[in-house]
């Protein structure tokens, strides 16, 4: 009998935008410690799936469980255990990286506001007191990862993690997230190459359905 806790469990989850079914009766389970990549072409449903797992979007039907609890019944408690990075930055341009991180740390009731380890690892120390609007896309993405991990989440959701990043930054992120076990890491990506470097399992989506679920 497995003693692993399911970090994410989707049961018959569908999501409809108007007449379009972005997700069609998806069922899957991701255990703690697993690194899973969601792959597929544009419009396959990767971002919708990540948003539902992050409790940003309600599914049209089906159940979502995060660490074996109903994700939407007590959204606040669920979100305390989730770190979510998307292709859009959640940082405020006028504030420095430090001020942004402090803002999120405060609202997540984190006492240790300076996550030194992550900042050092992602080579952000030099940029920590610089307004976000002055950062390049890659640096902004790194800062956004610090923001998402400031409350030490058990489930890390990374939507289009590698999009627009140089090889060096991608390597850095792969190194970082490969050492995050026993946390569960879910990545959506177009790049099979980078997904294989980071993840142990790949789920291929097509037109809102699971086309293939495979071990790398």
């Amino acid at each position: 009998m497995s003693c692993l806790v399911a970090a994410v469990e989707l049961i018959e989850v569908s999501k409809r935008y108007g007449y379009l079914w972005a997700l069609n009766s998806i069922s899957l389970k991701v255990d703690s410690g697993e690194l899973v990549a969601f792959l597929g072409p544009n419009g396959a449903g990767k971002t919708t799936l990540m948003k539902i797992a992050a409790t940003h979007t309600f599914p049209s039907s089906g159940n979502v469980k995060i660490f074996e609890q109903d994700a939407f019944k007590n959204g606040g408690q669920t979100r305390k255990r989730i770190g979510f990075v998307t292709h859009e930055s959640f940082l405020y341009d006028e504030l420095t990286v430090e001020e942004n991180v402090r803002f999120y740390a405060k609202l997540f009731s984190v006492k240790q506001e300076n996550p030194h380890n992550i900042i050092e690892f992602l080579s952000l120390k030099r940029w920590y007191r610089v307004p976000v609007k002055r950062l390049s896309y890659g640096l902004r993405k790194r800062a956004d990862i610090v923001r998402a991990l400031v409350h030490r989440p058990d489930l890390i959701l990374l939507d289009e993690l590698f999009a627009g990043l140089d090889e060096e930054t991608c390597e850095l992120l792969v190194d970082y997230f490969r050492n995050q076990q026993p946390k569960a890491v879910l990545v959506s990506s177009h790049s099979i190459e980078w997904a294989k470097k980071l993840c142990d399992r790949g789920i291929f989506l097509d037109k809102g359905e699971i086309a293939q679920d495979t071990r790398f």
Partner: protein
Amino acid sequence: MGFFSTAKGIAEKDLKAEFRKVYEIFSILIFSVSSILICSLAWGGVLASRSEVAAAALWIILFFASVLTFTTSFTREKDRGTLGGLKTLPCSASAILFGKVLYAIVVLLLVECVLLLFSSVFFSLEFSERLLELVLVFLLGIVDLSFAGSFVSGLVMFSEGKTLLLSLLLFPICMPVLMSSVLATEKIINGLNVVDILPELRLLLAFLFGLAAIAGLTFKFVLEA
């Protein structure tokens, strides 16, 4: 983290971001001051100093200044993608809305201080004897406006014509607030005391509780859209 601490944190962040790029807050203040000057020049000294004209002018200017504030409230979060960040927070949608309301209250109080200062000069108004009553009316009116404006700003943020919709929706929703506030301000300028403005204060309070109840029940669906 509690409801009020979360709201305070969001309001502090908004104010810090707003005052970093002072041109937006300055544009609201300059709009208010120039409106006072234009009214004063257009109506002349005698008409502008009449209580009903001055009270109406003050609230009309404040209302338009508030529209400028609310166009950047939730809309900016949506346009810059930071709304997703607020949705990651372990708090209720109402706490996020209340944070925006607190931010709007601070900005509008600042506008109101400038308005009162300039109107006392250009409209030749004398508030000092009834300052407490005036503060009470303006505070309640501003809280109501902030609640209504932030709620409507949240409602329209996903639409394409958000600026137009905001102006179209905000005016009819705020009509009871504007009418009560203008009447109460006029009475205060005429030297009446707090007992005389009780009906208007009651209406302002009822509006606030009604809107807070509606917003509290529905705002999580607004954020999810």
